[in-house]
């Protein structure tokens, strides 16, 4: 009888083994990460919006998720190389850009605009006014007063 009980208990233990796969464990660790901050002009964060990160040339994403309340994405590259980051909101705002990082999560050669934003507004206005100035000269030559 005791032997039968032991065998039954052993059987139950092994039969229940797959259940252990659902017993989610966790560990906590600190690791270097690439932190990307997305924000609108005026520092309004691009918060709780969807993003996807791809290894260069791959179609399946390496990481997907949503930005945090500060509009940040943190990801831990598993190798050095180029990464493509896509972020998008339901109303059509978003970004699609590339960055490079080494295995220690130190970014390099991130795609950055050539000018700072406010400087570029001034450049844009100057370009528009200059272009229309040239057009004005052309129009005056076309129709001499």
């Amino acid at each position, binding site marked *: 009888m005791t032997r039968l009980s032991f065998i039954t208990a052993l059987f139950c233990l092994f039969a229940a083994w797959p259940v252990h796969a659902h017993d989610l464990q966790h560990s906590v660790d600190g690791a270097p990460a690439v932190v990307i901050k997305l924000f609108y*002009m005026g520092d309004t964060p691009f918060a709780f919006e969807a993003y996807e990160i791809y290894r260069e040339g791959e179609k399946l994403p390496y990481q997907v998720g949503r930005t945090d309340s500060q509009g940040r994405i943190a990801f831990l590259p598993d190798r050095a190389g180029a990464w493509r980051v*896509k972020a*998008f909101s339901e109303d059509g705002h978003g970004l699609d850009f590339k960055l490079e990082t080494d295995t220690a999560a130190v970014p390099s050669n991130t795609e950055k605009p050539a000018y700072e934003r406010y400087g570029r507004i001034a450049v844009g*206005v100057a370009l528009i006014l200059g*272009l229309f100035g040239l*057009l004005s000269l052309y129009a005056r030559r076309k129709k001499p007063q």
Partner: protein
Amino acid sequence: MHIPDGFISPQTYLPAYALAAGLWGYAARRVHRQLDADTLPFVAAYTALAFVLMMVALPLPGGTTAHAAGIGLLAVCFGGWMAFLAISLVLAMQALLFGDGGITALPINALAMGLVGSFCALAAWKLLTRLHETLALFLAGWLSIVVPAALVAVVLGMQPAIAHDAQGAPLFFPFGLSITLPAVVLPHVLVGIAEGVLTVLGYRYLTRLRSRLAA
């Protein structure tokens, strides 16, 4: 409202480029015939204003942002084709200098905001100006934002159906029409109010300035 790069499939932006290129050429010919050295400084100033307006994002409820654009103002002051070219120029510069609105999305942004927005504004103004000029100007501004927003929402919302992989996963913009229409249009219904007020004030200012200069 600007659509960034990577959101639009080639099946959408290539035909849009072909259509926009033809319309840019036609608009340039139309504008060239009416080119007036006295008007151009005003067009320049309002185009520069449109450029700055599009850079200033207004925070809206829900954490998103939107911006006025000066489309209605350009259309009622200088005509639809001039407004189309001016807004296209602004969008091209934003795409090249700022990455606001992508190069691939440029024709869609230009057709929606520059062409449809301008001619909607012009139609509203011409139809209603005899009844009530201020109301006509306000509606011109409001429509110049809301109608392009609806068009952009439709183009974005159609992307999952146009471009997807074998499993049906979207290759470009992932949200469908049921999400994009309210998400894009509703904020612009509010922004349209600012655009309407801007159109009324800008048009009145230009009319006064022109009459003062003519005197």
